[in-house]
């Protein structure tokens, strides 16, 4: 395996020394590009009280291409599919090499509080949730209790 770029070493050190509140990201013992991530469900969201496991992988050409992030814990969220794949612009076309692991994880945490806030159609999100609100929130809370609170 090629030597680990200084950027990844620096980011990992900073994640260890100054962790982001509510987020833990630990590199795997055997692969420094693979991180075990735990995100706590934000307060005042249907995910409050849950601990969500994610996996994060830094591809070969990181930071030129975005990290690959996936929820391992099942979650009921309009921007996360049943395989845990996340629909978030900064993981796709809005990725920039100036973004970092910590900014990505913060964005994911924010996504739990507000579905897809950066979407140009975000103004309509509130209205949409009015239509489905009670049922959607009930489902999300139920899934959080069932899948994210075991431990």
């Amino acid at each position, binding site marked *: 395996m090629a030597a680990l770029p200084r950027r990844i070493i620096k980011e990992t050190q900073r994640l260890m020394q100054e962790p982001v509140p509510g987020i833990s990201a630990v590199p795997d013992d055997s692969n420094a590009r693979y991180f075990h991530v735990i995100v706590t469900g934000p307060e005042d969201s249907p995910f409050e009280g849950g601990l969500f496991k994610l996996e994060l992988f830094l591809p070969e050409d990181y930071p030129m291409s975005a990290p690959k992030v996936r929820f391992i814990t099942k979650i009921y969220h309009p921007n996360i599919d049943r395989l845990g*794949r996340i*629909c978030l612009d900064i993981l796709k076309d809005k990725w920039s090499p100036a973004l970092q692991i910590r900014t990505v994880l913060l964005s994911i945490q924010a996504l739990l509080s507000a579905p897809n806030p950066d979407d140009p159609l975000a103004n309509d999100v509130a209205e949409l949730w009015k239509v489905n609100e009670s049922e959607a929130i009930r489902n999300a809370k139920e899934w959080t209790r069932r899948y994210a609170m075991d431990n």
Partner: protein
Amino acid sequence: MFRFIASFFTKLIQMMLQVLSSKKHIIHNLLSIYVKTSGGQTVCLDIDPKCDVSHIKKLVAPQINLQPDELKIIFAGKELADDYVIEECDLGQQSILHVVKIKSPKLNEVFRCSTPKANLSPLTESLDYSTFSSEDENTEKPLERKAHFYVYCPNCKGLKQGKLRVRCHFCKSGAFTVHSDPQDWSHVLQPKQITGTCENDPEYCQELLQNCEPTFAEFYFKCSEHVSLGECDQAVPLDLIRPNLRHIPCLACLDVPETMFTFPCQKDHIACLDCFRSYCLSKLLERQFWQHPEHGYTLACPNGCLNSFIREIHHFRLLDDDNYDRYQRFATEEFVLRSGGLLCPQPGCGMGILAEPDCTRITCQQCKYVFCRNCLQGFHIGPCDPVEPSLDAQGNCDVDLNCPVVEDPSRTTIKVITKPCPSCKTPTERDGGCMHMICTRSGCQFHWCWVCQTEWTRECMADHWFA
């Protein structure tokens, strides 16, 4: 006897060594330069870099039948003062100096007394990055190493250090003195910013201009790493590559590079050259360059800063040759498509074709393939064959694999697993996530619904945002 022979040989060897070393010394120190007169005559001189400008005048004057004090020596936009030492002038091997006859030596004497010496030094000497870039205004100037310009040299085929040179905008003669020093890149890169005096043939230039505007300086750059190849030897300035005097870290690798690529966004977003190369390469392979109406096929600051497009596309010469070729090909293809043209669909061809808008029978000039403009299949009479695969809402395809397929398997696969962007028709594959598609083709970015294959609406969001 033996002693005598031995001492003779030692002496001989010493003498030989001396001759060799002194010869080497001379060869090493001489500078070959050309001095060009306004009459078009060129004098070749081998000079000691330690001599001063008056010495050159003494050497040149007899060859052109003038007195040394009748001469004026011009280099890089400035007249060189008599006591200026050549090695301080930043002259390379086979550089060209310009010599002109002073119209009235008396007048010149007066002028010279009133001119501070700093003004009579070559332009490249009086310019450094601390004065040339406004960004250094507020910091102290720790110029440990000498700042310099960077160019793409078509002769050396690569990024090299460059030297700024000046000539007359109109007659292109190097015998030209500037009235003021350029203060920033815009003075150098944009034409007609700095006025000056053409010393070559002032009457010619003034007549040409009919006195309606002053004579302007034209700045150009040359590569400093190969011996000058004459006056046409030019290199493209890469103005965004600069010495990293303020020790800004690279936005991608966080190292502090010595030489940096500055994104044109005024926000200190810089990258080291390696990261800039990989940024270009990854954007190129994703076809994420933009076809900018003024600057061409280019990129902006990776942080998405407004109006941060790279204007000088020669910066992409930092890519290796293969990828630069690829860059040029993609740029051409994008241009053809933007202009309403199309690319020959024959594998291995891809020729750009501009055809009349209502013509559906297209013949490729390159490979002679005749195809239908609408379906890009071999030309046919009647409506196009509807080979659209049927996909259900989940994106699973429903294709009869037993049906005989007579065409290119890649093309079949593309047809089966993709849907065209409703706006630009680019075949698009959905590899997961929600039904909200954003076209990845640069310049399109259309928001569409994978299920409806129309623009993304709030109904799509309510009914089938995700599966």
